[in-house]
């Protein structure tokens, strides 16, 4: 029983991480039809900057963790918005080329991180509490899982509230529904593009700082390895659907944990198998609309 609880909560923690990456991917795809390959780089950059911040402030205090998260979110948002403004916008409505630009950006930035911080993982420390465990129904759960879950839920709620109750949220939701109609009504939908990139980048940035605590290190490959699972999550959840991304993140991560434990480390393969099954049974994903 305690093993099941441990796997479940660890799975939820990993799912939280997937969601932080996938939420931005899904929003961006939903509004602009862009598959953002550079999303992993936003995450990696935020993780490195968060690590540098925490190191400068003394890594063991809660204050430095909060500062790291803030720096991560801000840098993620800034870089993402910059990417949209400088690169993506120039290729308006040319989806394949937009994807290619983000591919080039991902390749170039990972190489740049290699050059700046080295290819080896940098092991990190955080507040002492994060490294300890808490007993839940007999299972000893690492505390950072709780932090991950709490932050991911907060981010989900914040994005939902933003989309539902603000004017910009309304524009974004309308844009996902029918972009040309929004433009025809005289609303500059391009501002919403930058905004969506910033939100996705901020979520990925927070995810980056938390991922470094989850794995215990930062490396230039951090974002790329998470990005692939985030892609799978967005396809399973249905491209462009935020609740879909949330549900699929949890399903994928929990399944991965259980398969890793009970089926001899085959978690990654089981996830790909799940993707194949979902595509065969329901090609538009769990929550996706008919294209």
């Amino acid at each position, binding site marked *: 029983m305690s093993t099941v609880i441990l796997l479940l909560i660890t799975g939820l923690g990993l799912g939280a991480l997937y969601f932080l990456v996938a939420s931005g991917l899904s929003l961006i795809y939903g509004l602009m039809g862009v598959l953002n390959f550079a999303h992993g780089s936003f995450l990696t950059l935020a993780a490195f900057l968060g690590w540098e911040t925490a190191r400068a402030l003394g890594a063991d205090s809660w204050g430095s963790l909060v500062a790291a998260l803030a720096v991560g979110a801000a840098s993620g948002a800034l870089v993402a918005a910059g990417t949209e403004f400088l690169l993506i916008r120039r290729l308006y409505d040319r989806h394949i080329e937009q994807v290619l630009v983000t591919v080039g950006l991902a*390749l170039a930035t990972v190489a740049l991180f290699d050059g700046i911080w080295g290819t080896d993982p940098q092991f990190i420390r955080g507040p002492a509490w994060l490294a300890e465990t808490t007993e839940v129904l007999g299972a000893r759960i690492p505390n950072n899982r709780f932090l991950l879950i709490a932050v991911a839920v907060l981010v989900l709620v914040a994005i939902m509230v933003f989309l539902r109750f603000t004017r910009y949220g309304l524009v974004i939701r309308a844009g996902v529904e029918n972009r040309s109609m929004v433009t025809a009504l005289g609303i500059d939908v391009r501002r919403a593009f930058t905004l969506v990139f910033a939100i996705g980048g901020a979520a990925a940035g927070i995810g980056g700082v938390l991922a470094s605590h989850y794995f215990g290190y930062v490396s230039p490959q951090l974002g790329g390895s998470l990005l692939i699972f985030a892609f799978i999550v967005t396809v399973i959840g249905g491209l462009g659907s935020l609740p879909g991304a949330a549900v699929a993140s949890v399903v994928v991560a929990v399944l991965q944990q259980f398969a890793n434990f009970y089926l001899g480390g085959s978690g990654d393969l089981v996830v790909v198998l799940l993707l194949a099954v979902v595509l065969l049974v329901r090609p538009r994903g769990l929550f996706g609309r008919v294209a």
Partner: protein
Amino acid sequence: MSVIRSLWARGAVRWALAGVLVAFAAVLPLLNLVVPGVLPGATYTPGTLQILALALIFAALALSYHVLFGVTGLLSFGHALYFAIGAYGLGIILERTGLDLLPAVGLTLVVAIVLAALFGAVSLRVSGISFAMVTLAFAQAGSVLIRRNPDVTGGEEGLGLETEHIPDWLVGVVDTRNLYWLALGVIVLVFLVVRWFERSRAGHVAAAVRENELRVRVLGLPPFSVKLLAFVIGSVLAAITGMLYLLLQSGATPRAVSADFTLTILVIVVLGGVGSRWGAVIGGVVYTLLDQRLTALAGSEWIDDLPAVLRIPLSEPLFILGTLFILVVLFLPGGIVGLAARLGRRRTPTSAGDARDRLEETT
């Protein structure tokens, strides 16, 4: 001039030019050509021939991707998987079964055809961006399998080539030129197969699917089976180049199945010019030589004296290539071939606008 032009139109001049080019490439190992700054040494030396053979392999691989992306408009992010199936498949079969090279190659081909048909059939259930992500996921699964089973695949260390059943003329540093000629033969073969496919009835339907799939369906033609055919042809050609890669490099590493490797193929095709066979070939050769030169640049002495702001980006070949790629996508949508056409006498109407549209049709 008009004679030349009419001959050009009939393809005679193009055939002659291609023949001269292949003949020139074939005699390179016998010549003592030195191209400073491009090749590391004279063309007869094994080191240079190794790089030239690698360039031909990348060109052939780009051609195989051209069948998917350039002709049929399938943006696959898992093409490296089939390259790896060729390389690892042949390596494992040679090591485990004790078959001779030719039967082993045949067996690998069968494996590649079966796997490509199977994975292709599943991933072609979806199209566009979803297809890209699904192929990426399959390639990732392959990458995990290769890394996690070190007793079969050599894991992170890579798989060495078992030379016992390989003919002597393909083993050893002095025989690099034989491998080079083999690579030249393979790329000619791949080029002809791709050309044949593009001009076949199925190829025309594939191009029509790229332009407008709905319309193909309305005309009563089957888009799925044509896409699957293109997928299998492209994947099997990639597997053939993978086998050649195994022979040339005397082994295979997990990098061959990584997502980065697929992105590299994509970079090559876009760099050369999407939708053009010669673009893929030129892109492959230019990319390999550039990669080689940039790596040499990163290790050179004068770069150590530069301030960190310049030194760090310049010592990362992938950073320069990635930036170059972004610039090509932004400002040079037709790639190298598109640029050549623009600078040339505009003999063909392939202007940048066309190339851009061509790229976009693949959505």
